[in-house]
């Protein structure tokens, strides 16, 4: 399985990531892309917020809020990743609702949506930006 790469924890302490420093083009590096299991997720702290970062089968990386709105627990990164129709989804580990990884929209309840974050991979390092 993937190993943690040279992305040192020091470079990404939560303290250095205040909301003020978050502009659309200043994104926060969180980890090496291999640190995210294929079809799995990790949690990261970005500007004080818990963000769930996923890597799907084809290598695409997505980031949505980590807090499951149905239980309030910060756990979405631990859900099972898969697809529903065209949408890449994670299902909440708590009560199993599916969330579209691209938009944060809950597919089992139209009225519920979690934030989705901009994300990009630069030189093998995943960067998370602001809410899209």
């Amino acid at each position, binding site marked *: 399985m993937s190993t943690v790469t040279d992305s040192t924890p020091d470079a990404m302490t939560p303290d250095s990531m205040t909301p003020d420093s978050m502009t659309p083009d200043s994104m926060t590096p969180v980890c090496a892309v291999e*640190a995210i299991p294929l079809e799995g997720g990790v949690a990261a702290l970005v500007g004080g917020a818990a963000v769930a970062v996923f890597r799907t089968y084809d290598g695409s990386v997505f980031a949505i809020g980590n807090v499951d709105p149905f239980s*309030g*627990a910060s756990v979405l990164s631990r859900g099972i990743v898969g697809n529903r129709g065209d949408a*890449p989804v994670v299902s909440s580990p708590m009560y199993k609702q599916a969330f579209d990884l691209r938009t944060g929209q809950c597919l089992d309840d139209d009225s519920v949506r979690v934030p989705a974050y901009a994300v990009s991979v630069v030189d093998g390092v995943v960067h998370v930006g602001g809410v899209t």
Partner: protein
Amino acid sequence: MATGKRQRIVVVGHGMVGHRFAQAAVERGLTETHDLLVFGEEPREAYDRVALTSWFGQGSDALSLLPGGAYDDPRVRLVLDSVVTEVDRVAQTVTVVSPPSAVPDLLSNPGAVTVHEYDVLVLATGAAPFVPPVEGRGKDGCFVYRTIEDLEAIKAASESATSGVVIGGGLLGLEAANALVQLGLDTHVVEMAPRLMPVQLDGAAGSTLVRHIEKLGVKVHTGVLTEEIEGGEAVTGLRVRQAGTDEGAPTDVIETQVVVFSAGIRPRDALARECDLEVAPRGGVLVDEQCRSADPRIFAIGECAAPGGTMYGLVAPGYTMAEVVVDALLDGPGAFTGADMSTKLKLLGVDVASFGDAFATTDGALELTYSDAVAGVYKKLVVSEDGTRLLGGILVGDASAYGVLRPMVSSGMALPDNPEQLILPASSGVQIGMPDEAQVCSCNDVTKADILHALTDEACESVADVKQCTRAGSTCGSCVSTVKNIIEDHFASVGKVVDKGLCEHFRLTRQELFDVVAVHGYRRFDDIVEAHGTGRGCDICKPAIASILASQTSTHILEPVTAELQDTNDKYLGNIQRNGTYSVVPRIPGGEITPEKLIVIGEVARDFGLYTKITGGQRIDLFGARMEQLPVIWRRLVDAGFESGHAYGKSLRTVKSCVGSTWCRYGVQDSVGLAIALELRYRGLRSPHKLKGGVSGCARECAEARGKDFGVIATEKGWNLYVGGNGGATPAHARLLAGDLDTATLVAYLDRFLMYYIRTADRLQRTSTWIEQLEGGLDRVREVVVEDSLGLGAELEAEMARHVGGYEDEWRATLEDPAKLERFVSFVNAPGTPDPSIAFTTERDQIQPIAPALIPVGAPA
């Protein structure tokens, strides 16, 4: 409803119908105003007489209709082993004779005669086999076939016999004959009429049936009279002569040591006769449509009753009568207006059904027949003169269309243009729609409409649900396949996908997937979904495949190929709690633990500030561990000799024990020792749903073993094995699979049972629902597991041996592998920072989670 003083209903007879009456009285609230006092002559509570023959394989427990012998409602008193000998209609009392042990608290003069008052008397005394006045019928070796005691006696006699004869070739006689074959006797059936089952079958059907019965190894003698039973004190033979010949005509002798009379039944109406209640000319207490006799305080139901002068020798009309009387006592309008006398034979491997006007006695009725002598199939439909309605029919050799045809008769629905399609081969007739009012289950009077109602309004989804909710299929079982078709048709019609595919990614069932994985030797989800599915999976198919792979390979569940398929709990080897923390449950096999280990658990809980609780499964749960704490906590536990308790996986949980013979003064076997051995044997075994076991040291059953997927209860001779129990939302009592086993056989059967379940059950199907939905139910399980009819036994045992040999503690292995430990961090970019959303308060000196604030996003459902 009556007001004032509580009324007492005395019920005479605790057979199938008396029991249904008590059940209905409780369910419909009659016991709010009435007390029930039920006397039963037999030494045990009511049992499923319809399934009597299965006693040979399963013993009495499995047949019981009231396991435990007492009703939950304390206003119903059941007194067994007691005979009502007299009814005094003026004093409104019954006289009862009981042996000393039956009713210690009820009788001040034990072993004697007591008198009890009634406000209402319900006679449910059933019927007795008719024994024709043949010379020699009292000799040793002559039996009837009605009670468990009869079968015990027949079994005992068969041990020293080589040959047996059944007198009577009707439905019951053939069943008895089959039993004699099973007991290893050279078996004959003697029938006076020119054909078997003369009441239900015509000549052609009868001769087709003979060929089937002879294949079972039974010699059939039709058109034959019994002259005399020969022998001294014990039977040695049966002297017979051709029917229609004169006395003195040449006779034959069939050598035999066992004779079973099955020449019809007679209502047990003696009590009524003796108190001058009117009986019907052919027997049976004469009652009206409310089942009320000439005395308004006395009712009769079941086989002892003759509503409108006719007695009914089937259980379904009896059940209807029981309901009608409860209704009458609640001032309801219920009436008994006759019953469907359709029959379907339940003999192993022989399909016979007869329904409606099978003999075409209706004016102008026409017959359509199909027969195939080679295949041994005969089918006849009786249709109305104008060809528009089905009146009745007979099916021999292939009764698959019975489920559709019989309701067509009772509902009077229009026949299709080409009715012969209904009986031609290849057509099972299922495509012909069935009207809503058609009765599907005759034993329990359940219509198609009732089943549809259960599906739409009671949220039933499966045969098991419908059984539970409507009782359809719970008695003789012959309607189960029709029930299944109705359920499938219904879901298809409302657009619910009935293909039993797992999810949008797989059209296969779990069982099919299991086989596909085994055949191809797949080890990776990717290969499976590419070859047999679509897309990238979901929270349904991924854990199911992870479980299948685990059952087949015993590799660690957190190996890279399967780690991301695991359900959340398996992914972190702990149960997620409402605030995102985890629980820690070390295995405590059989619930036995040393003081040292208890101290370790206490210390770990104290040092990490975990909430501690004794579980319902005889072990200790530590709650509130943050994900990143799990490895440190488990390091301490593993070092002290603990291992994962698999509280998280769909796998073996606990095998509960009682203290057993080591300490308990009643124990007859070492239940703790066996519980530990079983828990260690099956620990880590991945299965379709969680598995629980229990072992009790004697019949007092302190381990509640019959509430478990597998329960073992010690006997003087060994162990009884029960399967298919659970608590939870739909509790089920485990039923006896096999009795008096030695430990090695017990383990072999359990190995087979569990592996058979793992191979063939649906995802998230507990053993009880799995058994319910297996074609053949528990009998099927017994065939495969005990009788090894599929020859799979050795293979299933070998699979289990591979599991046992490949077991390793999941937590220990995880702690030893840095790659597996990587996932246990709070934040990938801040591993030292605990999740700030987790917080606790204190209650009763321990931590409790503070509900994390819900993010304001719309209105979560």
